[in-house]
């Protein structure tokens, strides 16, 4: 039994301390992910808090056949969507550069971060699939479960996302070569 499964078992028995320990393992990763989905840093923090509360409240419904992170990300995505409401436009269109929480967390000196361009190039769901695959190292099956999409949809859209970002990456490389 791993440390994580021990903590899960204890949390399922009602231990808030065990769940706090579990939350500590995931909160930075979740916050980083939520920053890409929310309009401000404060929203991302609220979404993180709501996600962890909902996860603890419904910890009994967690099925150990799934990875815990898959279950947690499912809740996080729902919470981030709830904060935005059903009729809002794509999150990339809402932000200006000054208030973009993702931009704020990347040092000014650094070159263009691919995730920033990914967000303006890809739609929300494809972006999330790409994030879960390449930042979280999730399997295609886990991603399709998290997004409540079919495996075929996930594969096709990961491929499309990759193509779009490869083009982006190559054009940045060409630009920097051109400027020396």
């Amino acid at each position, binding site marked *: 039994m791993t440390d994580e499964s021990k903590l899960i078992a204890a*949390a*399922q028995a*009602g231990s*808030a301390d065990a*769940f*706090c320990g579990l*939350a500590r393992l995931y*909160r*930075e990763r979740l*916050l*980083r992910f939520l*920053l890409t989905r929310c309009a401000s840093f404060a929203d991302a*923090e609220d979404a*993180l*808090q709501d996600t*962890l*509360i909902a996860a*603890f*409240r*419904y*910890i*009994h*419904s967690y099925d150990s056949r799934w990875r815990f992170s898959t279950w947690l990300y499912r809740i996080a995505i729902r919470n981030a969507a709830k904060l935005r409401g059903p*009729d809002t436009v794509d999150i990339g269109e809402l932000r200006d550069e000054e208030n973009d929480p*993702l931009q704020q*967390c*990347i*040092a000014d000196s*650094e070159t263009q*971060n*691919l*995730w920033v361009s*990914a967000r303006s190039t890809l739609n929300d769901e494809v972006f999330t699939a*790409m*994030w879960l695959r*390449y*930042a979280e190292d999730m399997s295609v099956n886990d991603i*399709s479960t998290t997004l*409540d*999409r*079919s*495996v*075929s*949809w996930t594969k096709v859209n990961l491929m499309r996302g*990759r193509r779009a*970002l*490869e083009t982006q*990456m190559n054009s940045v490389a060409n630009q920097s070569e051109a400027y020396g």
Partner: protein
Amino acid sequence: MDKLAKQLRADAERIEVTVSDELDRRINASLRAVEPVEQVPRTAKPPFFWLASTLTGVAAAVAVIAIVNWQSPDEQTSATPVNFVAAVPTIDLKAESAMLTGPLQDELDKLQSDLKKAEEKVKRDIGL
């Protein structure tokens, strides 16, 4: 790992986030104030429930057979009845059908969910 995957991984790690002490306190306090929702245990059915439902099922089957067979000879068709049961080859399924169809059903559900989402998106796009 290819170049793009490496770049994406590195760029994700470059996004610096720290959970502030204030947020940490907030989360811990709210987690301690929350009670997990108890899962309602499935109540076991009393033994006579199964007996009663079996008897009801058998009675319904007998009733259907009686109604179907209770016909006057002139109503019966003259055509030679075809024994469909004999005509259809019997497949001896050893594996549980649920195990075989489960993943397909999941995939079907997800495809239907995709379709629904796409439909909603189109409706939203055209302003319905």
